[in-house]
C-alpha cells in the first residue's frame, strides 16, 4: 500500500515499503516551463534529506532537485534522458525522476499531505 506526500521544494514522494519514488509536482513543472534536459542522479549514491540530487534545465532556468528523505539511489528514470519534456506532460506519474531505498520511514511523516501542500501553495503564491 503506497502513500504520496509533498515537500516544500515541490517534490512529490511515494513510498511502497522501503522504496520511495520521487518526482516534481505539477505546480513545479508549470513554474519551470519547457523542460529540455534532466540531469539524472548517479545510481548507488547515498543522499540525505534536503540535499540537491540532480538538476532540471528548462528554457528559462536551471533548477536543483532535492531529495526530501535520506536513502540510496537505486533507480533513475532513463526515459527522461531522451525526453525531458515528459516532466511537463506527466510530472506526477510516468515522469518520476529517481527511486530511493530509504532508511528512516519516520522522515516521511514530516512531509505534507496533498491537502497541506495545496494550502502551502496558496500561502507561497501570496
Amino acid at each position, binding site marked *: 500500500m503506497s502513500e504520496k506526500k509533498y515537500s516544500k521544494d515541490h517534490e512529490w514522494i511515494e513510498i511502497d515499503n522501503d522504496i520511495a519514488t520521487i518526482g516534481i509536482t505539477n505546480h513545479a513543472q508549470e513554474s519551470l*516551463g*519547457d523542460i*529540455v*534536459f534532466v*540531469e539524472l542522479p548517479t545510481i548507488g549514491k547515498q543522499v540525505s534529506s534536503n540535499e540537491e540530487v540532480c*538538476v532540471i*534545465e528548462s*528554457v*528559462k532556468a*536551471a533548477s536543483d532537485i532535492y531529495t526530501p528523505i535520506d536513502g540510496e539511489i537505486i533507480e533513475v528514470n532513463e526515459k527522461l534522458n531522451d525526453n525531458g519534456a515528459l516532466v*511537463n506532460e506527466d510530472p506526477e506519474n510516468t515522469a518520476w525522476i529517481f527511486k530511493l531505498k530509504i532508511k528512516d520511514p519516520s522522515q516521511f511523516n514530516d512531509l505534507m499531505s496533498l491537502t497541506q501542500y495545496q494550502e502551502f501553495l496558496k500561502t507561497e503564491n501570496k
Partner: protein
Amino acid sequence: MPINYQKGILNEHLQVRESAGLFDVSHMGQILISINEKNTISLSKFIPLDFDKINFNRCYYSFLLNNDGGIIDDLIISKIKYQQKDFFYIVYNASRKKNDEEIFINNLNDYILLTNNSLLAIQGPNSEKIINFINESKNLFFMQTNTSNFLNKEIIISRTGYTGEDGFEISVPNDVSNQFIEILLENSLIKLCGLGARDSLRIEAGLSLYGNELNEKITPIEASLTWSLHKSRLNDESLNGNKILFNQLNGEIKNLKVGLKSISRTMLRSNTKIYNIDKNQIGYISSGTFSPILGSSIGIGYINKSEINNKIYILIRNNWEELSIVSLPFIQNRYKRGG
C-alpha cells in the same frame, strides 16, 4: 508582454517558424523626429549612417554611439511621410529608453515621442496572409516601410522584425490597437507569443540583443555588425568615436562574436565564462537558449580571436563541458527581399 502565454516558449517558437506569431512589443520606444538641418546634424553625431543617402520608406539598422564608439543602443531608423510631414522614425529598446530619450531631448527640436502608439510585431511565414487587410503591406519588401490607415487612424507598417522570419512591425495608435489585435487574432494562423520565444527566435537567427551582445563598451565592429555602418562616416570627425571605429575597421579586433552549440546536454546560459584547454578564460556566453529546431542548446558569445580554431569549454556544476563554435545564424533567415 509576458515571458510566455499558455502553451509555453517552445510551442510559441515553433508557431512563429511554422506559421505566425503576434508579439506585443509596445514597451519599445518610438519617436518621430522632424527632418530639419539641426536634427540631421544632431542625429549624425550619434548614428553611423550617411544621412544624405537615407531613402524614404526604407528602414536602417543602426546605433546610437558614445564617444568611444560604444553602443548606447541599437535601433531601426526610417524616413517616412506621416501626416503630410517628413520624419525620421526611430524604434529603440525599452531597456534603453532613459538613455536614448535623454539624448533625443537634449539634442533635437521638434519631435514627437509616440507614447500613445502600440507596436505589434507579426512574425512568421504566414505574416503576409494575415496582414493583407492593410493594402500597403503588399508593396513592401524586407526593411521597407510605409504609412497606412486603420479605422481612420494613421499607422506605420514596416516589413521588419527580429526573429529571422518574414514579418511586419506596425505602429498603431492605442485607441484602435485592440481592434487591430482582434482582427489579427481572428485568423487561426497567428497566435500570441511572449518574450521567451522572442529571445530564442532571435538567438537562432543570430541577432544581437542590447544588454547581452551589445553594451556601451562594445563597438558595432567588435559586435560583428560592421555591415550596418556607412563606412564613409568613419572619416567624419562629427561622428562619435569615429577614429576608434576607423582604426578597428583597418586593424585587428581582439574578440569575435560566435555561435555556440552544446555538445552534451548542457544548457548554455548568458554570463557563463568560456575557457580554453589550459583553463584560461578566453571569452563568455552572452546569450543562451534551447533551439527546438536544432534540438540542442545554442548560444552567442565572444571569444578571443586566437582561440577560434581551438577546443573551448565551460564549467558547469564542476564538469568541464566542451562547446562547438558554429557560424551565425543557426538557421537561415527567410526575409522577403527585393525592391
